[in-house]
């Protein structure tokens, strides 16, 4: 437990940046969802690190709730993706632009 907290925070920031870049660059909707998961994991790592640095269990509570919300989000998002792919096969994020103004 002797690795200082900022090392974890920098690693989490790098992971968040990689996830955000992937979300912007990729076109496959499923891979974009995986990049969102990367960003959620980065935030979880930050929460656990601050929980250790501040000697407070509240950060780990937050990670617990983030896990639950991530699970629910993935279930609903994959349901939406399945519904979209049933309507039109082989759609990427560029093809699904009906909501564009």
């Amino acid at each position, binding site marked *: *437990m*002797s*690795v200082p907290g*900022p090392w*974890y*925070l920098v690693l989490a920031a*790098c*992971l968040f*940046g*990689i*996830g955000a*870049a*992937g979300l912007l*660059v*990729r076109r*496959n909707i*499923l*891979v974009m*969802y*995986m*990049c969102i*998961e*990367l960003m959620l*994991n980065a935030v*979880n*790592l930050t929460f*656990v*690190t601050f*929980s250790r*640095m*501040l*000697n*407070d*269990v*509240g950060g*780990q*509570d937050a*990670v*617990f*709730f983030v*896990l639950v*919300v*991530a*699970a*629910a*989000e*993935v*279930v*609903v998002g*994959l*349901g*939406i*993706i*399945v*519904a979209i*792919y*049933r*309507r039109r*096969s*082989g759609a990427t994020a560029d093809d699904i632009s009906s909501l564009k103004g």
Partner: protein
Amino acid sequence: MPVAVTALANASAWAVYAVGAALVIGGAAGVVLGRNPVHCALALVTTIFGIALLFINQGADFLAAVQIIVYAGAIVILFLFVIMLLGVDRKESREPEKFRALTPVAVVVGVVALAELLVLADVHYWATGSKETSGALNGPGTNVEKLGQSIFTGYLLPFEMTAALLVIAVVAAVVLVRRAQSGQRSQGAQRRAQAPPPGPVRRPDSGQAVTSGRAPVRQESRQSGAPQP
């Protein structure tokens, strides 16, 4: 002797951090750069294992276990299930980017941001702010004990709300997928009603042509047509 033990624990903590960081960054790069979505999902598993390793290194044992169980055991399997179900495990088409000229700018900004982060990590004290009243992390009792005590006393109402949220998510997933499926089934029934009855009338070359395109539909119609006398 305790000095040697402390040095060993210190070295092992750094080693675990290095391995976890390598897994995390490598897996994330695999998710972003992988062409095949199945490979991306497997790289996501690598990242999740690395995160769990870092959780253990920081004393969050319960969250590491939950991370493995929920993410690697449920969410990634769900991703793989949807990939296989939809058949989107083919390679992504790479069209020319619209903002190709801005790529060096993005790289420069990213490198500058990373340098700033490293400088801040070195010179700045990050963990500021007031603490919550949910309890100390260090002290008597195991990690699971303290986490459970905090969740089931101070955060009982949010915990109940997550239960409701999960039920709503399950219902939403069923509604989203089932509506499309019922429409498809009615289309399939119409197609079955319009199609000629399966039998020896079919020519062999047309059968071959059909199996290359939409084999599952034909198989389903044949299976459903089989019990008819």
